[in-house]
């Protein structure tokens, strides 16, 4: 099935209403989506409710002494990370997706591999290499003894780390956009006399904009929610302050207030992004002809090769070398237990991926079915969990879960059935928490795919007699396969890397690799953390490779 792109900027043609594509008239369907949105938004509402009971004294201290620095630090961080990930992600996506140069095939999947490395692992590895005591500065000092100490624990260092960890989001999204654009549009542009560079900036880039924006939004949300990397660098952001207010000053209220500010920032960004996106209409699906790539010539060819090599080296090879070196130093005798941690990690990832993608699909269909403002807002709020620090989110989930449990216990008391802690501390609740945290990642991929199904396909299918569920099963699911799988694998890897929620909500005996990494890094024992980190990366590589293979099909 090959379709051509019809890309029409909003200015010219009036937007075709997207509804009526799929008409599943059952109100149960809508209720399901509504319920999903509500469940996903519940922890946020719990956190926001703390705004009603402000703890005046601590709040005024924070406002006076801390908030200014936090705001500046956070803005600086985003101002660095956005261009860094945009340039590297889009650039590399364009090179591997639409151009031809030596090594393209290798880089097109290899550049996704860093996605398997959690940001907190990047942080301690990079500090281990480039900090005062690391090999690089030691070497420099041994050559130039008068050389001072260079502190990399600033916004520059943190931005670089987080960009290395998060650029794959932009890369994946933009690469798939460039690949599926088809050559026709670019070729048309070339026929009209545009140089390859101008064809990229005038045609390919604008067409890929919604995907790039979706990737960048994920990057921003991840950066704002990151706790591990910034605390290893001792760089103050909202997450640090939230933890300090809560665990240091014993004020969950102030922590929740800081979280709310964070949530409001993200909501604003999301609305802005959505506004930008709504001006675009893009309808395309299926595969396109990508046999004819732009052949890069001469020095361009080698420039492409070296930029890919540089990023791959910094984001994957170098950290792996350092981890292996540490791993050999600290190799443990009972490696066998890591098999259990690895299996737990993988199982949680799979369960999280399946449930989250299903929820994302339901939500996305509901939004398509009823694109009114109500549904729009609920999807935005439902995907906000991505930007909240995991621990805060976990509290927001735990409070209602505990309430449910005690209600259940009261209800069942006369019957004599023991329901105590049926919900809390169950794997089910933890997986739900992953779903709430990572719905944004799954939703982004699934929703982009759904938006690309042309209205005419739905209409044609209906003319041929397909309705409701059968249309979903026979038309949409096959066409969405790629988007669903991308979403599922993104969530899978994200869940496996996730630390705070796992730490707080896991049932007895459910330790994961991330938990082990936390136990060692929090004591500054980076060498010992290297072993579980290597295993986590190995476990994560498989799905990441699956993801890239899927995209190339």
């Amino acid at each position, binding site marked *: 099935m090959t379709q051509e792109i019809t890309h029409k900027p909003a200015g010219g043609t009036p937007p075709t209403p997207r509804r009526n594509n799929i008409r599943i008239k059952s109100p149960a369907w809508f209720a399901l989506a509504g319920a999903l949105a509500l469940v996903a938004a519940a922890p946020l509402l719990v956190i926001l409710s703390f705004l009603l009971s402000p703890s005046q004294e601590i709040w005024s201290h924070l406002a006076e002494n*801390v908030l200014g620095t936090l705001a500046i630090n956070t803005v600086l961080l985003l101002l660095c990370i956005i261009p860094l990930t945009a340039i590297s992600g889009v650039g590399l996506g364009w090179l591997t997706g639409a151009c031809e140069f030596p090594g393209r095939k290798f880089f097109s999947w290899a550049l996704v591999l860093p996605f398997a490395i959690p940001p907190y692992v990047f942080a301690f590895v990079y500090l281990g290499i480039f900090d*005062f005591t690391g090999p690089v500065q030691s070497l420099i000092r041994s050559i130039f003894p008068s050389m001072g100490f260079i502190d990399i624990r600033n916004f520059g260092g943190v931005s670089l780390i987080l960009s290395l960890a998060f650029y794959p989001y932009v890369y994946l999204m933009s690469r798939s956009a460039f690949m599926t654009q088809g050559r026709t549009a670019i070729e048309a542009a070339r026929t009209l006399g545009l140089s390859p560079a101008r064809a990229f900036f005038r045609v390919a880039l604008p067409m890929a904009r919604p995907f790039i924006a979706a990737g960048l939004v994920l990057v921003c949300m991840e950066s704002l929610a990151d706790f591990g990397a910034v605390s290893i660098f001792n760089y103050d952001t909202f997450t640090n302050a939230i933890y300090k207010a809560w665990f*240091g*000053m014993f004020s969950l209220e102030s922590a929740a207030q800081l979280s709310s500010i964070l949530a409001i920032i993200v909501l604003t960004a999301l609305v802005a992004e959505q506004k930008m996106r709504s001006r675009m209409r893009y309808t395309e699906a299926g595969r396109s002809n990508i046999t004819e790539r732009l052949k890069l010539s001469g020095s361009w060819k080698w420039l492409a090769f070296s930029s890919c090599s540089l990023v791959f080296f910094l984001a994957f090879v170098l950290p792996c070398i350092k981890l292996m070196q540490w791993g050999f130093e600290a190799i443990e005798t009972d490696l066998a237990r890591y098999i259990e941690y690895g299996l737990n990690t993988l199982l949680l990832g799979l369960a999280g991926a399946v449930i989250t993608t299903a929820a994302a699909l339901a939500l996305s269909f509901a939004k398509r079915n009823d694109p009114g403002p109500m549904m729009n807002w609920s999807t935005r709020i439902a995907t906000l969990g991505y930007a909240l620090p995991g621990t805060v989110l976990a509290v927001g989930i735990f409070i209602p879960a505990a309430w449910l449990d005690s209600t259940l216990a009261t209800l069942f008391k006369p019957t004599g059935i023991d329901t105590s802690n049926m919900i809390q501390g169950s794997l089910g609740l933890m997986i739900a928490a992953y779903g709430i945290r990572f719905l944004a990642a799954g939703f982004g991929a699934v929703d982009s795919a759904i938006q690309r199904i042309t209205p005419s396909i739905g209409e044609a299918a209906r003319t041929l007699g397909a309705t409701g569920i059968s249309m979903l099963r026979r038309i949409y699911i096959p066409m969405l396969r790629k988007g669903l799988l991308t979403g599922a694998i993104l969530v899978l890897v994200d869940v496996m890397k996730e630390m705070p929620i796992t730490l707080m909500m896991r049932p007895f005996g459910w330790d994961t690799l991330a938990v082990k990494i936390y136990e060692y890094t929090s004591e500054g*024992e980076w060498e010992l953390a290297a072993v579980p980190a290597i295993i986590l990366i190995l476990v994560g590589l498989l799905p990441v490779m699956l993801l890239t293979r899927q995209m190339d099909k």
Partner: protein
Amino acid sequence: MKKLITLAITAIMVTAWSTAAFASEVVVYSARKEHLIKPLFDAYTAETGVKVKYITGKAGALLERIKAEGANTPADLFITVDAGNLWHAANEGVLAPVKSATLEKNVPAHLRDPENRWAGLSVRARTIVYNKDKVDPNELSTYEALGDAKWKGRLLLRTSKKVYNQSLVASFIAEKGEAETEEIVKSWVNNMPVAPFSSDTKTLEAVVAGVGDVAVVNTYYFGRLLKKNPDLPLAIFWPNQKTSGVHMNVSGAGVTAHAKHKEEALKLLEWLSSEKAQGKFASLNMEYPVNPEVKPDPVVAAWGEFKGNPMNVSKYGEYQAEAIKLMDRAGYK
């Protein structure tokens, strides 16, 4: 894919509802890391046949979990590091007071909650470590004196976000009041050549590399580093020997208010304070035993004897929030 999904769902179903309770078991929530506590639980189970189920995590998150679980909590014993965390847990009402002659005998009064809601299990001395090649120990005297002009550009500290430093500053506030403490903290900040570090180990490594000459750390981090590299140019200095004494912190535990196995939890707690367990508990992490009858590990004993601060450690919790605000004002990151 289908098979994997089925497998995943089955596994969830099986594990989620298999929370059957054994007659003789005790459930522990521990902020002490698994590798520092599991060997003891194993020994306890081998000795008594009582099963110890545990979960490890961050102190604050575990506490919030116990609170959210309320009367339904499966936690019987809460083990955490730092007196501030213990004080906070007691203050939030999640720990029950216990009457135990064994604990009173095994744990000195200043390392226990005045209302018996928790007891210390190991002592962590936070002291000064210096570079032997660059510092004459006669130059050193007290924590406070690290703010002197002669340490300008030579003092390295861990981040103020770590509870250990919050407790240290809290103990100053309890002793000297806020104004004087703030001056001391400011003078420290003034002497630091680089931003504070995220861990004690990294602080020590920076002293080795020559970024600075002195640091304030817990002794066991020094011990661990020494184990890896016996030729470290570092040495321990016991400060404040003529004044308040070395800053002492504890890791400790308390029985939860809604414990389902109250008896078993108290027995485990008492056992952990016993001579049999204390040596192991402390030496696993190269800390000092709380039980005065028990000698520290030979490696630890080699660092010499010192006078510890006799202040009741629960004061750290009381002044912790003040300490954080003060450090924020003083610009201690």
